């Protein structure tokens, strides 16, 4: 909402020279009371040195028909100016910017020569004064003003325009009176608003028009006034200026008056050309479904039964509260106007405007709730201005149909409740002063009973009044108190803490934590994985953000792609986040997962060690460490195909024999879809399942008292013999004294034999009762080797 500082000043009467009421100070008062000032714009201050002048003679230059050499009387002398306006003619009183003057856009005027003709300045059009955007004609003034008169004498161009953010609960502040009332409460000044009543002629309004409201819910009040004998023309400069500064395009004097009164009172008005009504009737009714109507902007609108129409008995003449119709709009020929000032139901207007996608100054006000008691007063004001500016005669009386009267909310206000809620000792007298300042009526006794003002639809409960007290008192005057304490222990925090610990662990392991959008390209995912069920949005912004991710792998693939595209080749990533799975019954199940992603080098390039590329074991190794971090005893992988992964490298992950997720190598097809040209390994784990596993019970065992003995053994086996089989044979044949077996070398070369591999293991032996002798351990090693020969076809590598 754009608000004029000058207009506020005329309503409140503060002294603009007083620094307490400077434009900046007023802005601060408004911001700190809830009408946030988004911008402050200073207007007209730059304009300098403009005076009135009269054209004595205007001669076309050469063979042009749009340039005139004008000789002008500037009051003190004659000057010559070249002017390009078609309306430049002899005896016209105009505005003259001599050399040295400054116009609205900051241009300093200098003497020039146009087509060889000297020009001592320029004659001004409206845009050069900042009155409007019009540039086609120079401004024409009344003849009775003396040439040489400075512009400031006839028009005050200086103002400060605020752009206020008005919250939806405060329709009253969509007007200068409403904002002035705020200032009144904040400063204690009085509101000076006593517009003159129109002088009425004998003919009565009711003899000229009949008003019927067929839908009192949609239109609880409708008032009409008639002004006859008006002359429609351009508005006076001051009116154009005000509208232009406040962001409304001047149309003609009658329409401008309705807009001016709206900016002043908040009440949207509409003027109809009465002579263009089919009958002398106004009927307010609902539209028929598919009824068509051409609004003022020339667009044909298809209506629904939700729309409220103003009709003349035969046809629609306005879309109530939103926009008037082209068929009855005020034109230069209009002689008699019907001024409508009504109250329309907010929900009806809001739905209606939304249905046709049309939001206007009028609809924005009605949908927030206007002041129903303002309707006739605004109409009186508009009629009086029409009389003054358009020279019309105001007919006697106002037709005021008011089928659904305003019922104010009446409720108790307890000052002690306000004190408790606000946490500040505000005196009751101060509270009453605030209520008075805001024009909130109350009965004063042992009990304070509030009567809701008609202009404040938001004040219906005690708490609403408490808010008024708090904001006018000043939020920054409320003290700060500090009430902290221990956890109330109502919400278990263990899971969150374990997840945080896991995150820290992974970061310690050199992972980078990622955080992806949960919205994905639904079509792409379904193209790659037709089997996968995906929850789609009904109203997505775009196809790329059209579905909720069904897993974290798709997010990880996107992250990897992005990074590879930017040359970040060595990746070690994790994300913990939620995924969304559509269930059979239409519901969507949400759960958290952990995802790991690897690509490029498994460790940084270094002079100390050879760097290897990430492979399955990079991922598997980290998965084992995660198990260790969570005190889970056993990690195993079992082959299991899945669409994301290469068949050879697709496994389910089991922790303590519970299936917790998958690990694998990104399938070539999927990689191609995403334009990924580098091997990627990924793992995804269901977090609930992971955290639900029982960690090993921690119980002190006592450290061994006797030393252990290590033995290494290297065996050659067929390539397809798995490590786990060899280790199982060694464990079984070795017996209880084998403490640990671990492979430390794997060797596949031709000199070992076709389809053979060599594996070396370190075995740790220990007895809890004595120190083992070499002979004893040698004996066990012999047994183990024999078992390996028999059961795994192994040979000792020599």
């Amino acid at each position, binding site marked *: 909402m754009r608000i004029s500082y000058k207009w506020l000043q005329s309503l409140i009467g503060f002294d603009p020279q007083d620094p307490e009421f400077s434009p900046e100070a007023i802005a601060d008062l408004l911001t700190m009371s*809830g009408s*946030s000032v988004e911008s402050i714009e200073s207007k007209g201050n730059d304009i300098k040195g403009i005076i009135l002048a009269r054209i004595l003679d205007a001669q076309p230059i050469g063979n042009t028909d749009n340039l005139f050499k004008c000789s002008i009387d500037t009051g003190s002398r004659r000057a010559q100016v070249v002017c390009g306006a078609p309306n430049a003619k002899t005896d016209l009183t105009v505005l003259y910017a001599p050399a040295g003057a400054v116009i609205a856009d900051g241009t300093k005027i200098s003497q020039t020569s146009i087509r060889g003709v000297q020009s001592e300045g320029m004659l001004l059009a409206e845009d050069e004064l900042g009155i409007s955007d019009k540039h086609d004609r120079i401004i024409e003034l009344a003849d009775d003003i003396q040439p040489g008169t400075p512009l400031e004498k006839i028009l005050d161009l200086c103002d400060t325009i605020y752009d206020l953010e008005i919250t939806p609960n405060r329709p009253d502040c969509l007007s200068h009176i409403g904002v002035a009332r705020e200032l009144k409460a904040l400063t204690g000044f009085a509101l000076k608003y006593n517009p003159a009543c129109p002088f009425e002629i004998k003919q009565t309004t009711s003899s000229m028009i009949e008003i019927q409201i067929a839908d009192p819910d949609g239109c609880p009040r409708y008032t009409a006034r008639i002004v006859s004998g008006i002359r429609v023309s351009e508005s006076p400069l001051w009116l154009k200026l005000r509208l232009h500064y406040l962001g409304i395009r001047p149309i003609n004097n009658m329409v401008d008056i309705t807009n001016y009164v709206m900016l002043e009172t908040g009440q949207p008005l509409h003027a109809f050309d009465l002579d263009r009504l089919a009958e002398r009737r106004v009927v307010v009714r609902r539209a028929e479904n598919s009824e068509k109507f051409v609004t003022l902007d020339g667009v044909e609108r298809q209506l629904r039964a939700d729309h409220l129409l103003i009709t003349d008995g035969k046809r629609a003449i306005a879309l109530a509260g939103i926009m008037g119709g082209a068929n009855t709009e005020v034109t230069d020929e209009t002689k008699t106007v019907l001024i409508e000032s009504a109250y329309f139901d907010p929900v009806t207007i809001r739905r209606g405007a939304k249905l046709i996608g049309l939001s206007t100054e009028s609809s924005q006000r009605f949908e927030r709730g206007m002041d129903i008691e303002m309707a006739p007063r605004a109409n009186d004001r508009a009629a009086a201005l029409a009389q003054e500016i358009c020279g019309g005669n105001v007919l006697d009386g106002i037709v005021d149909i008011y089928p659904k009267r305003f019922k104010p909310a009446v409720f108790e206000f307890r000052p002690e409740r306000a004190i408790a*809620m606000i946490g*500040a000792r505000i005196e009751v007298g101060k509270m009453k002063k605030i209520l008075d300042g805001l024009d909130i009526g109350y009965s004063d006794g042992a009990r304070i009973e509030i009567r809701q003002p008609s202009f404040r639809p938001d004040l219906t409960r005690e708490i609403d009044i408490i808010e008024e007290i708090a904001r006018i008192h000043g939020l920054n005057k409320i003290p700060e108190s*500090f009430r902290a304490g221990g956890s*109330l222990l109502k*919400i278990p925090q263990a899971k969150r803490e374990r997840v945080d610990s896991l995150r820290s662990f992974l970061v310690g392991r050199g992972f980078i934590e*990622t955080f992806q959008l949960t*919205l994905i390209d639904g079509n792409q995912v379904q193209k790659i994985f037709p089997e996968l069920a995906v929850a789609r949005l009904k109203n997505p*912004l775009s196809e790329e953000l059209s579905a909720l991710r069904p897993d974290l792998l798709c997010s990880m693939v996107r992250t990897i792609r992005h990074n590879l595209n930017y040359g970040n080749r060595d990746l070690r990533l994790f994300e913990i986040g939620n995924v969304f799975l559509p269930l059979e019954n239409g519901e969507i199940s949400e759960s958290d997962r952990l995802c790991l992603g690897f690509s490029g080098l498994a460790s940084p390039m270094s002079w100390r060690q050879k760097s290897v590329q990430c492979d399955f074991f990079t991922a598997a190794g980290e998965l084992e460490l995660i198990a260790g971090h969570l005190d889970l005893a056993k990690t195993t992988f079992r082959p299991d195909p899945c669409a994301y992964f290469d068949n050879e490298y697709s496994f389910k992950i089991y922790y303590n024999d519970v299936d917790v997720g998958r690990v694998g190598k990104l399938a070539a097809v999927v990689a191609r879809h995403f334009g990924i040209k580098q091997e990627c390994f990924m793992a995804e784990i269901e977090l609930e399942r992971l955290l639900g596993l029982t960690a090993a019970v921690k119980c002190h065992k006592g450290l061994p008292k006797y030393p252990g003995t290590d033995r290494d053994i290297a065996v050659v086996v067929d390539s397809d013999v798995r490590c786990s089989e060899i280790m199982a044979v060694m464990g079984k044949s070795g017996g209880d004294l084998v403490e640990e077996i671990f492979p430390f070398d794997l060797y596949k070369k031709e000199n070992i034999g076709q389809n053979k591999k060599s594996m070396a293991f370190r075995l740790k032996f220990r007895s809890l009762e004595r120190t083992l002798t070499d002979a004893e351990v040698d004996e066990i090693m012999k047994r183990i080797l024999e078992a390996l020969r028999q059961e795994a076809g192994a040979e000792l590598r020599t």
Partner: protein
Amino acid sequence: MSDIIEEIEALKKSALKALDNINDKKTLEDVKVELLGRKSRLSELSRSLGKVPADIRPKAGAELNELRRTIQEKIDSIAKVVSSSNKAEDKIDYTLPVRAAFLGHKHPLLQTVDEIVAIFKGMGFDIAGGPEVETEYYNFDALNTPADHPSRDLSDTFFLSNGMLLRTHTSPVQIRTMEKNRPPVRIIAPGRCYRSDWPDASHSPVFYQCEGLYVDIGVSMADLKGVITAFARALFGSEMQVRFRPHFFPFTEPSVEYDFLCVFCRGKGCKICKHAGWLEISGAGMVDPEVFKAVGYDSEIYSGYAFGMGIDRITMLRYQIDDIRLLYENDVRFIRQF
């Protein structure tokens, strides 16, 4: 006892003492020559063994050999740990970068969440959560947001085909928590939210919020001011100031917006705060009685405050990030900066 035995004993003591404080190879070499070299006392004694009376000669010989072995062993073990000589080729080039492993980093947005959580935990808030796929009831109705409120427009909220929606704020967690717990309740609820905003430098259709709620007997706006100010100072330093302005939200009354003193210019006015000196952070207020009604709390007995904050925005302010999309792109070069 004969002299030689005593001398061997003394020699042993002094030799071991000499070896005790050796830190480099050079000294070790010198001491070795001194103790075991041809001119050492030990060698002298060995050479003069022939002159020792025959009855103690075997014992003296054995002790000398034993001492030589002891010293040699000691020298060998010192040689293993003592640093190399001063010769250039033996010196290490300690400027060689090692890069032992990749360094991990937490995502900057989640680092901010972690810090915010830690601050509020310290003030006795528990961390609550809730689903992102929500019902209209929890996202709007229970929060006193009537069906015709502009924020329920299709253009702001993402809907799913089953009539559910993606929560537009973390406030549904307030309702879910109050439904399950009787007062007092003190929680924060960080989490993802969704609004149908086209992505640009300052908007993302998916963003991160944190909600706070405290309901008890006698909670007032002064408490709200206290907690927000304490939080601001914990996050941005003890000089931080907070400004409260009246505002409107359907689910709080009175409602406020709170601003932090601009973290860049400290209130002097700069480009980032648009010369206001203040940065708009988020909204807060006293829980509206209608919300209490929805969860069955008696607003005549209990009162409470609620506040929200945009964690994306706070993260961007903390690290001077000028484009919200960077937070969701996951470029490792970006995340490694934090």
